[in-house]
């Protein structure tokens, strides 16, 4: 995989949820993603940025344009040094939240993207990498 462009954005306020997802939406549109794929990756960005802010006490979002086998994609990395996720299998199943909230952000995000990787350690933090690929021939 080749990284063509990378941009690191801080996550240190609630406003960064909109900032990060707007950036992601603009990149996905530029790469010729259809409306459904744009919504999917922008929604994933919104969920993961909010999680890094609310649960992870802030961190960074890295928005990347990547290429593999002639296909272009958006890759997003989220880092935080928060408390980590104690019961990852349970969280990934969905419907579990340590806040009074839906608990569908992480499990839902996983279904919205093509690639999903998560590493989380209690007391150390959480690192999530997701990617969504444009369909072949999408880019002009």
């Amino acid at each position: 995989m080749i990284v063509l462009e990378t941009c690191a954005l801080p996550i240190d306020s609630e406003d960064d949820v909109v900032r990060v997802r707007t950036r992601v939406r603009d990149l996905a549109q530029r790469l010729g993603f259809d409306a459904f794929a744009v919504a999917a990756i922008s929604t994933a960005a919104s969920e993961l940025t909010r999680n890094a802010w609310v649960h992870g006490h802030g961190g960074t979002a890295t928005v990347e344009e990547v290429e593999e086998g002639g296909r272009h994609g958006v890759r997003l990395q989220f880092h935080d040094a928060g408390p980590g996720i104690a019961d990852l299998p349970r969280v990934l199943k969905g419907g579990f939240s340590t806040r009074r909230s839906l608990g569908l952000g992480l499990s839902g995000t996983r279904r919205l993207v093509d690639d999903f990787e998560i590493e989380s350690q209690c007391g150390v933090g959480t690192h999530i990498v997701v990617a969504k690929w444009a369909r072949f021939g999408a880019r002009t």
Partner: protein
Amino acid sequence: MVSSIPVIRIRDTLLSAIQGDLSDRVAEAFQGDLLSRLERTGASGVLLDISALDIVDTYVARVLVETAQMARLMGAHTVLVGMRPEVAATLITMGQVLTGIDTALNVDDGLALLALPRR
């Protein structure tokens, strides 16, 4: 806080077109604004037009559902209108995030739904 999202009243109905790039703070403030408008006007219906929203994540979905539930407790029926196809697809992929709220294709259909006898 005032959300700056306009809420207009047409007869017995409150209508609001929620603007794009909705932040969590604005979403919450909007909920408060709408409910106080409901209290002041005694409206019996609420139409929330979300056609300007290019994404609805689980947070916004929860605020919308809760707003409709609170409005119902205050005696008003809420209908969500104008959801974009890509937003509907995303919500379905994510799971049961927007349940228990009435929806209609557009404002006209929403008004028709509100005019039906209450269940």
